[in-house]
Every structure is written in structure tokens, then in C-alpha cells.
């Protein structure tokens, strides 16, 4: 017997696109009718990871990094050029019904709901499509409707719902068959903070209750910070980090932030001697200093300046990641 395989395995996954380039102007248009210049884009260039049952993984990277392409390969929408993919023991690309019945792919901007009919009709249709027994259906629906408090809107035609209400119903439609693997592509895009929190809480509950493996991509670090313990960072088709969220700070942050509130006026040039000024909004100033010298810098501040309040902080994760993506070496 082979040891049990991880729920999701991607090994040396490669996907190249051929994009054709057009020269500008009418001349270029005519020329492109006959001769086309193609350029190869490496969307994924050897991606490796494993994800186990019950794991909730945040997948982050700038636009065009390969997040969605990866999800498409895992769900069976894209045929990888090279490498090995296995999800729930299936080759996703074959899109077998038994496989599709155990996964769900929620894309923030696309909807499953029938526009002119109330969400409940889509739910009932999905019950048939995924052959969910009536008893399970009733139970799960009641539970989810309760968690997202949408009891009174599922009977209103979808086109009359707000974006947030629709997104909640989208999630229900996608999860009624209780998928074991869930791909969430930007689930909170365009939502206000209250709605974002509600959706996050719901995803967390689903993950815990059904031990589902969830991969989540998002542009909001908040989503990832609140939901995912493990984070995979991808850039230009290559994984640059795979580990616990807290590790990112340890590994990549080479400085700390000291925020100080002064009681009397201070001079910028005096502060510059201690560290780089990140923000100067008197009486509050934020200084960046090298990791090792933070305590020293703090005591120097307390000694020589009129300090009212002082804090040493890690730089926010968003900032670390932004710096990661703006052209520094990862090695």
C-alpha cells in the first residue's frame, strides 16, 4: 500500500501561454493578418506544493502572478503543459463527475445564480445537479442561511439583491453539496468591511465544520491574515514563499518601526540620525530602524527627545509583501 496522498498535490506544474503581439496602427493590423509574432508567457513555471485535509491556505501574489492559473489547473479548467496534479486522487483535467461533485470554485466576479429567479431556485437546481439527498439539503441550507443571515432574501429575484447579498447566496450555492476542496478566487472583492467580515467568518466556519481544504486568493491581506495560517506567495509563475504567515515577517522584514509621540517640537534632521523617517505628522512620527538596533534607537530617543509615548512594531505584512514584489531578490 502506498502512503495516503495529500488531498491536493501539484508537482513541477508548468503552464505556458502563447500571446500574439500586434504592432500599433493600421499597418500593424494588416500585417498581423498575415504574419503574427508570438510571445511565450510563463504563467506557471514549475510550481510545487501539497495541501492536506482541513487546511486553509492563502494564495497571494500581484496581478498576473499565476494565482488564478494555478486554481484553474487544480480545478480542471486548464490543461497543464508539464508536471503532475492530483486533487482528491483524481486527475482534475478529466473533469469526472465524481470529482466535480466534491469540489467548488467560487470566482468573485462570476455568478452561478440565475439572474431573474430567486436564489432558492438555483439552490434547488444545484440539489439536483449534485444529487444531494433532500434531508442533507434541508439541513445544510438551514445552517448556511442562518450563518449568513439571508433567510429573508433567498426568495427575492437575484437581480434585485445587493452585491453583498448576492455574494452570500453565491457561497451557499457553491457549498450546498459540501465540497471537500474549495477554491475561492477573490471572494470578498468589492464588498464593504462589514460584509467582508461576515464572509470571512463563514468561510472559517465551513472550513472547521467540514474539514475542507480551502485555497483562497485575495487582494485584501485582511482576508488572508484572518483566515489562513499557511500562506503561499507566488510571483511570475514561481512560488517564492510557502509557510506560516508569521514566518514572512521573520524572514523578510529587516527593519522595525518605532512610532513616537512627542510632547514638544523636534527637528527632522535630528531624528534622521536615529532612523529613516517614514511618516512625519507632528506630534506623531514613525521611524524605520534596522532590526538589531531597535532597542538601542528607542533608548536614544527616550534619552534625548521629549517623548510622550513610544512603540516598537513589526512592519505591517502588507508592506513587507509589497516590498517583496517590487524587485528585490528573494534568495
Amino acid at each position, binding site marked *: 500500500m502506498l502512503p495516503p496522498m495529500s488531498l491536493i498535490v501539484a508537482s513541477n506544474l508548468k503552464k505556458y501561454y502563447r500571446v500574439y503581439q500586434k504592432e500599433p496602427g493600421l499597418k500593424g493590423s494588416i500585417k498581423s493578418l498575415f504574419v503574427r509574432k508570438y510571445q511565450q508567457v510563463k504563467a506557471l513555471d514549475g510550481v510545487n506544493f501539497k495541501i492536506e485535509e482541513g487546511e486553509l491556505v492563502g494564495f497571494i501574489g500581484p496581478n498576473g502572478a499565476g494565482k488564478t492559473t494555478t486554481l484553474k489547473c487544480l480545478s480542471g479548467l486548464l490543461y497543464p503543459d508539464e508536471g503532475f496534479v492530483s486533487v482528491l486522487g483524481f486527475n482534475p483535467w478529466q473533469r469526472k463527475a465524481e470529482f466535480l461533485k466534491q469540489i467548488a470554485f467560487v470566482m468573485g466576479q462570476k455568478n*452561478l445564480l440565475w439572474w431573474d429567479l430567486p436564489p432558492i431556485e438555483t439552490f434547488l437546481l444545484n440539489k*439536483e445537479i449534485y*444529487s444531494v439527498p433532500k434531508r442533507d439539503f434541508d439541513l445544510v441550507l438551514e445552517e448556511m442561511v442562518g450563518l449568513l443571515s439571508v433567510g429573508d432574501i433567498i426568495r427575492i429575484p437575484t437581480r434585485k439583491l445587493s452585491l453583498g447579498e448576492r455574494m452570500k447566496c453565491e457561497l451557499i450555492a457553491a457549498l450546498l453539496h459540501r465540497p471537500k476542496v474549495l477554491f475561492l478566487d477573490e471572494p470578498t472583492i468589492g464588498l464593504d468591511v462589514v460584509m467582508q467580515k461576515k464572509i470571512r467568518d463563514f468561510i472559517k466556519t465551513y472550513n472547521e465544520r467540514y474539514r475542507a481544504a480551502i485555497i483562497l486568493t485575495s487582494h485584501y491581506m485582511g482576508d488572508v491574515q484572518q483566515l489562513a495560517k499557511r500562506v503561499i506567495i507566488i510571483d511570475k509563475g514561481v512560488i517564492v514563499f510557502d509557510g506560516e504567515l508569521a514566518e514572512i515577517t521573520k524572514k523578510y522584514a529587516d527593519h522595525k518601526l518605532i512610532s513616537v509621540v512627542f510632547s514638544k517640537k523636534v527637528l527632522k534632521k535630528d531624528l534622521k540620525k536615529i532612523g529613516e523617517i517614514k511618516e512625519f505628522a507632528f506630534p506623531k512620527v514613525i521611524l524605520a530602524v534596522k532590526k538589531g538596533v531597535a532597542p538601542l534607537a528607542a533608548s536614544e530617543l527616550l534619552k534625548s527627545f521629549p517623548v510622550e509615548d513610544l512603540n516598537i512594531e513589526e512592519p505591517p505584512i502588507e508592506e513587507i509583501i509589497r516590498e517583496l514584489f517590487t524587485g528585490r531578490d528573494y534568495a
Partner: protein
Amino acid sequence: MKKYLAIAKLSFQEDLAYRSNFFFYFWDQTLSFLVQVLLWTIVFKESESIAGFDFNGILQYFIIVKLIQIFTVSRIAYVLGDLIISGDLSRFLLRPWSFFWAMFSRQLGKKSYRFFYLSLVIGVLFFLDLLQLGWFKILVFIAMLINISVLTFLYSFNLGALAFWATNITSLIWFFQQIADFLGGGWLPASFFPVWASALIRKLPFYLALGFPAEFFQGRVEPAAALLGIGQQLIWIVVLFFLTALIWGKGVKQYEAVGD
């Protein structure tokens, strides 16, 4: 099977939400028919009969042609084309169903609404005995309509699948549908063409799907030939079905390779 029934039922409800749509479509068709009446009035001032049609005969022919079109027209080409180009096809591919049968059931659901209207019209004609309809004629005509619905769906589905290879297909779809209309006898009955052209047109599947059933309804086709026509329709359905499977298979592979 149950899931496809559910899709059909839901599509039926969805179409009910657009009752007025169908109403306007119906009147739009009627209006364009009135223009035709004017045109033919002028044409028939010169002669009693052209190519085997008198004035009443030609109007009757076009009424039936319109009814057949209203009942059997398929918009799946545009729907599918949009899904492919926008990338929305993805979410349909990730469901445990056959996309083709799902769309077919959807069409079926939408059509049942129109079928209701058509049965009303035929029912009235039947009871008024305006066209000396017998049971044989009604049954054969209904069988033909069902076949034609399948044929136009398959044809339209393949036109939509062109979007796998071309990025702007609206005009392409329109063009191919005009050709189908023209060769089907939607502009003129086949007998208006020169003998050789008319013989050719009658051999094509397009005519089987429009002019032929109209002529049958008018009593211009012998019962034996009508039954043969149904047989030919069935053969074309099988041929188109396999063609669709082939094109769809190739197209989806292309879609998987390129993504969006």
C-alpha cells in the same frame, strides 16, 4: 435525468419572467409579415399564379414559415459564443453535468412556452377547419417541428462553438443564419428558383427544416414523401450530433489550453 428535467423547469420559469419579450417578438414578426403582404400584392397584380403559388397560397406559405421559425429558432449560438468569449463557460464546465444536455434542456424549457402559443394557433385552425387538417397532418407536422427544433439547436450550437477559434462571431453567426434562412426557403419557396437550383435546395437539410414542412402543411407534399422527409431529418440529426461532439471536443481542448 432528473437534473436535466430540473434545468428545463427552471428555464421555463425564467422565460415566464420575460413574458412581454415574447409578446413583442410576436408582434415584430407580424409586422414584418404585413410588409410581405404588401409586396406580394404588387407582384400578383401581374399574374394569377407564380411557380405553383397563387396569392393566398404564398401568404399561407409565409405564415407557416413564420410559425415554424417562431417555434424552432435557437439563440444558443449567441449564448454559447458569449460564454466562451467572456470566459464564463468555465463555471459551467465545472459542474457535474454534460454541458450540451444542460443547454439542450434549457432550450426545451424555454420552448415549451412557445409551444403553448403554437398549439393555441393550430388548435384554433383545427377547430375552424380552415386548412382541412386531419389527424395525420397534425401528427406529422408536430413530429417535424420536434425534429426541426433539434436540428436548429444543433446548427446553432456549432455556430456558437466557432467562438473557440474566433473572437468576434456575432456577424459570423448572423451570416450563417441568413444562409440557412435563404436556402431553407424562408425568403422564397424553392419552386421560385431555376429548376437546377430548386432541385439542389430541396436536397439540403436547410429546406427540410423550413420550406418542406411548410409545403407539407399546405398539402403540396404527398404523405409518403412527408414520412421520408421525417426520416431524412432524423439522419441529419444523427450526422449533426456527431459533428457537434467532434467540434465541441476540439473546442474545449483549445479553451483548456488557452484559458482566459
